[in-house]
């Protein structure tokens, strides 16, 4: 099963390589990884999407916690949470498809961030399902380039169950 794991780390030299080295050294896979500073510039958040059975994911969580620079590990998959990813897609539609591209962008609340006589670059933010759906619809229109940020996730501030 797929897990989105949020890791708070000391923002230190080499920390990314410690995390990625843990995954490669132990044969765990990383589907996506995104890193950024938190409000406290000494701390970064890494959001890692990985997959494995419960046994492996339990090990991943524990191994991450064991790294000296890791402050906190949260498996978002176990919590009510919000996930987002951003993609930028450069399409070069035929003349007759141009209107459809713009319509799709609008439906998906995308933004045109660049355009040229032959291309549009569209930015879309959302969860995985939305992005996949958007990409599938755009695919026949001729996708030239495609970049994505990798997932970021945050827990919902929920009402505690009694």
């Amino acid at each position, binding site marked *: 099963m797929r897990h989105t794991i949020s890791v708070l780390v000391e923002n230190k030299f*080499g920390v990314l390589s410690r995390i990625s*080295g843990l995954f490669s050294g132990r044969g765990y896979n990383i589907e996506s990884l995104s890193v950024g500073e938190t409000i406290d510039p000494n701390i970064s958040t890494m959001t890692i999407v990985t997959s494995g059975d419960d046994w492996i994911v339990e*090990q991943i969580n524990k*191994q991450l*916690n064991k790294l*000296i620079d890791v*402050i906190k590990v949260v498996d978002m998959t176990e919590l009510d949470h919000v996930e987002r990813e951003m993609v930028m897609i450069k399409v070069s539609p035929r003349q007759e498809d141009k209107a459809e591209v713009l319509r799709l962008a609008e439906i998906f609340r995308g933004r045109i961030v660049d355009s040229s006589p032959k291309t549009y670059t569209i930015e879309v933010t959302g969860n995985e399902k939305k992005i996949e759906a958007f990409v599938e619809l755009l695919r026949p229109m001729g996708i030239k380039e495609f970049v994505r940020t990798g997932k970021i996730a945050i827990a919902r501030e929920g009402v505690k169950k009694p």
Partner: protein
Amino acid sequence: MKMTGSEILLESLKKEGVKHLFGYPGGVVLNIFDLLHDEKELQLILTRHEQGAVHAADGYARATGKAGVALVTSGPGATNTVTGIATAAMDSIPLVVITGQVPTMLIGNDAFQEADIVGITRPCTKYNFLVKNVSDLALTIKEAFHIANTGRPGPVLIDLPKDVTTSKAEFHWPDHVKIRSYNPTYEGNKYMITQAAHMIAKAKKPLIIAGGGVISSDAAKELREFAEITGVPVTMTMMGLGGFPGSHKLSLGMLGMHGTYYANKAVQDSDLLIAIGMRFDDRVTGKIDAFAPNAKIIHIDIDPTSIRKNVRVDLPIVGDVKRVLTVMNKVIHDEVKEPWAEVRKAWTKQLDAWKKEHPMDYDRDADVIKPQYVIEKIHELTKGDAIIATEVGQNQMWAAQFYKYDKPRTWLSSGGLGTMGYGLPAAIGAQLAYPNKLVIDIAGDGSIQMNIQELATAVINKLPVKVAILNNRFLGMVRQWQELFFQERYSHTKLDETVPDFVKIAEAYSAVGLRATKKSEVVPVLKEAFAIKRPVFMDFVIDWTEKVYPMVPAGAAIDQMLFREQEVKKPEKKLKAVK
């Protein structure tokens, strides 16, 4: 007062209580070595290879429980430490390894003798540091020792650029360290411990498996009390030898690939395993799906990642072994009323039957020198009161099987990594810590040649280590596998003509060399060696056909063992070595 980085380094080591370090000089550490020239409180032992320095620091650490320290130069000096660091990492041994580095300005430039040692050792250290600013140095050293010694211990590396050793800063030694992201769990959960106590009380066939964690947490006393009050038999992993007295009536000796038949049988038949400070290495479990099929498992370990890593666990207790056992013993004493002695009678009987079925034995009547005989005589003559280091291979297994380790920290052997060349430098480290103890490296003719240069270190520092070479003129352990599983095709394991004359080698280094070629010479040679207050090489020319038994073949369940008795007696063994 401002001090240079080199001064801060040495002051910090003294503040940490370091008395000895092992090392090797070079360009970027010249400033540090210059200070060591007049240093009174710190003694640097010059080894003859950086690998030797790290193994010596490791032997020092295993024998004393305190972090060993090594100091080497950049580039090749640093890369030479990697095997030593990986050896310590696999066995959770506390080390602080200080490597020189090219000046900060040059890092990343492929400068002369530059190696990215922080990058290279990231996967085989517990943690490592590159010190970029001299004002961070004292705190870094404090943190390095803290990380190396606490939690699950391990090696820590500090990379020290040359300019940091010469620039100046105020020296502030921190009284304590707090690393917010590093908080090992020491206290076991009391509820879990109580549950465990009741499980143990109810079990009909309980068995303790004690590992290296018993030794690193200094819990031999607590373990013995635990075993004695509950009457539960104890088997040890190779790393756990000495954690429980090998000659105790509850001891079943070592388990695993070359463990005793009765220990392995007990595991497979047990209804409750109490695993203490061990990590279910594949050499211990054999075929994992067939491991301990009838047992519930209680697992006590300080490292949560060891728990449920490769076997299912019914009751995990994360904590320091000593503290967990202390609470456990109290709980058992105060709360547990189950009358286990009666229930366990059948178990004890069964264990005795297995012991009779396949005792640890060898051909005692042989005329040739059997390696097991040498080990037994070493045990007899030292009354089990020596510190034994080993190399790797058959020599190591015979040393594990036929010497009884009654005290912790008397068995120094590379378990997880299985590093040939470990024993001699490790023995030197232990001898430095205990100048009056008898320290013996049980060696193979192959392994001893991997760090044989350290004999010079022993001689010049008057460290009277004894090396018992079980000379079979083969890379014996590999040969054993070739004999059993590769139709006696001895591809590149026959050392025969090229095995050097170890007596002459010893003499060339101004040590003493002795040789035994007949069984009757074994005891006299041992006695003579033990009486000499200098380093001695003993060359025991043993029966090369001897193998380590019993043995669990790779991929088999641990009670599917091969025994010496099953060997088909071939009329005449012809040596078919492949050149």
